[in-house]
């Protein structure tokens, strides 16, 4: 296993960023952001092969697409701390004239973003297109994507899942954040998703699981295993179980923090549970 202390420090710092960003504007989505922090931090700092700087085409590097765009606070923090734009700019999240819109967009020219997302269910199709372009360009880099579990209720995903398997898009690793929650409650109460891994399998994907998506070592190991399974004729799916609101005790085991910001007092408690590691913005 890689030495994960540095990345663990980054995870805690990103959690602080998320909490402070949504608190400042009293809006945004902390729950899913906190649940996927280990994943996105590991992906950008341990797994993906990235060029310096940013260009839209991303030829010669791995690409990532965030389909569940509402976890933008996480995405912005990870991108800023990876050097895509100044960390101070996190201060502008959701403010007027900001490049850090409520949901990610290319429209304001924020480096690191390659497509708008927020209206759910569209990211896998875009990731497939980018993966096909890589094949046409003879670029053997990979395309990663992240999807909410509730988001799989959108039918477009199943068009995409069918397409990727049928056309052997084997340079794609799609991860499903299986936190079991959506706005109106448990996914199994709102519209049951059942065994997501089995569903991908019968559609023809190679599926693996990360049992605890909030365990950094498990996440890194799972992503490395997934990379090893690319290029073998099947798209790869990771079903990753996470805890929404992870790292903040009162935000866990509930869907209440899907799209709600903490109060001043709640922020203080949450930050106490996540002491500063790399410096606040």
């Amino acid at each position, binding site marked *: 296993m890689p030495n994960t202390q540095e990345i663990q420090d980054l995870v805690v710092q990103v959690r602080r960023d998320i909490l402070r960003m949504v608190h400042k504007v009293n809006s945004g989505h902390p729950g899913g952001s906190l649940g996927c922090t280990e994943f996105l931090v590991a992906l950008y700092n341990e797994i993906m092969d990235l060029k310096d700087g940013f260009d839209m085409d991303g*030829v010669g590097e791995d690409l990532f697409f965030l389909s569940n765009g509402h976890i933008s606070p996480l995405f912005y923090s990870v991108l800023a701390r990876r050097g895509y734009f100044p960390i101070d700019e996190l201060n502008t999240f959701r403010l007027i004239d900001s490049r850090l819109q409520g949901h990610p967009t290319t429209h304001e020219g924020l480096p690191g973003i390659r497509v708008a997302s927020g*209206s759910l269910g*569209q990211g896998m199709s*875009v990731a497939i297109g*980018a993966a096909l372009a890589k094949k*046409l360009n003879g670029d053997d880099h990979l395309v990663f994507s992240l999807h909410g579990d509730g988001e799989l209720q959108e039918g*477009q995903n199943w068009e995409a899942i069918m*397409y990727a398997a049928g056309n052997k898009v084997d340079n794609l690793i799609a991860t499903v954040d299986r936190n079991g929650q959506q706005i109106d409650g448990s996914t199994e109460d709102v519209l049951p998703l059942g065994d997501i891994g089995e569903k991908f399998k019968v559609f023809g994907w190679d599926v693996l699981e990360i049992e605890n998506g909030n365990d950094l070592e498990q996440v890194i190991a799972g992503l490395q295993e997934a990379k090893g399974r690319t290029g073998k004729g099947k798209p790869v799916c990771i079903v990753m179980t996470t805890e929404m609101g992870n790292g903040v005790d009162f935000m866990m085991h509930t869907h209440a923090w899907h799209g709600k910001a903490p109060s001043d007092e709640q922020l203080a408690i949450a930050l106490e549970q996540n002491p500063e590691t790399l410096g606040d913005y």
Partner: protein
Amino acid sequence: MTKYTDQGKQDTRSGYGAGMTELGRTNPNVVALCADLIGSLKIDTFIKENPERFFQVGIAEANMMGIAAGLTIGGKIPFASTFANFATGRVYDQIRQSIAYSDKNVKICASHAGLTLGEDGATHQILEDIGLMKMLPGMTVINPCDFNQTKAATIAIAEHHGPVYLRFGRPKVANFTPVDQKFEIGKALMLNEGTDVTILATGHLVWQSLLAAESLENQGISAEVINIHTIKPLDDKAILDSVKKTGCVVTAEEHNYLGGLGESVARVLATHNPTPQEFVATQDTFGESGTPEQLMEKYGLNNKAIEAAVLKVLKRK
């Protein structure tokens, strides 16, 4: 009046196919996607000559639009094609978020637009697509009038960076514009100069407007006919210059009068030079089954309807 000759009836969708064949040979970044309608879109030759640059997505238009958006990341120029109804209304949010808002260089190429799809009926005859597409910020909307112009437009949009909606149709219609013409996006084309009335037409209605102008000439009425192949961006100057001379306008399109060319023209006129205008368009209705000719007659979209609209607008001058 200026004489135009029908070089032999052809469908505008075959113009798209011919344009794609040429692009396949000349632009290695052009890729094509289709949702189970290869034969209807006439792209067989492109596929045969460039199998690695063609993506059959099946009956899954939402996925097609997303894949097209993704293909631009890496420098491809995707031409995503299907029937107009499934290329717009069915996938509006996919186009809105993944293509238009994301400023992706995708060409949405839509056949079987309007009533002239014919016998399949209203489920397949979209009369709202121009409105849907022109409302999207950054979207260019083009509706060429015949085979030659559709081919030229197909080739031209590959050179334009940004999302484009290219609308064409199913039936064989007069092919009267020059072979191998240069197509300039947003530049209206003067087809016949006149002094009494301006006819602004798009798509299949352009030829019908020329027929109407010929008949009007015999009645001593001088009609100016302008081909508005690009509805967005609209050639405001060409419209205003003509209206200054004639003082009244008829717009003609195979589309609902709500949201179509006519409304775009009315906006320009209301802002700069309020002018009497009549709309040859469908009147907020769905279509139905029938032959293209029967439908155009019943819904008032042919040369006779244009002629009647001219006589009406002249009285309002």
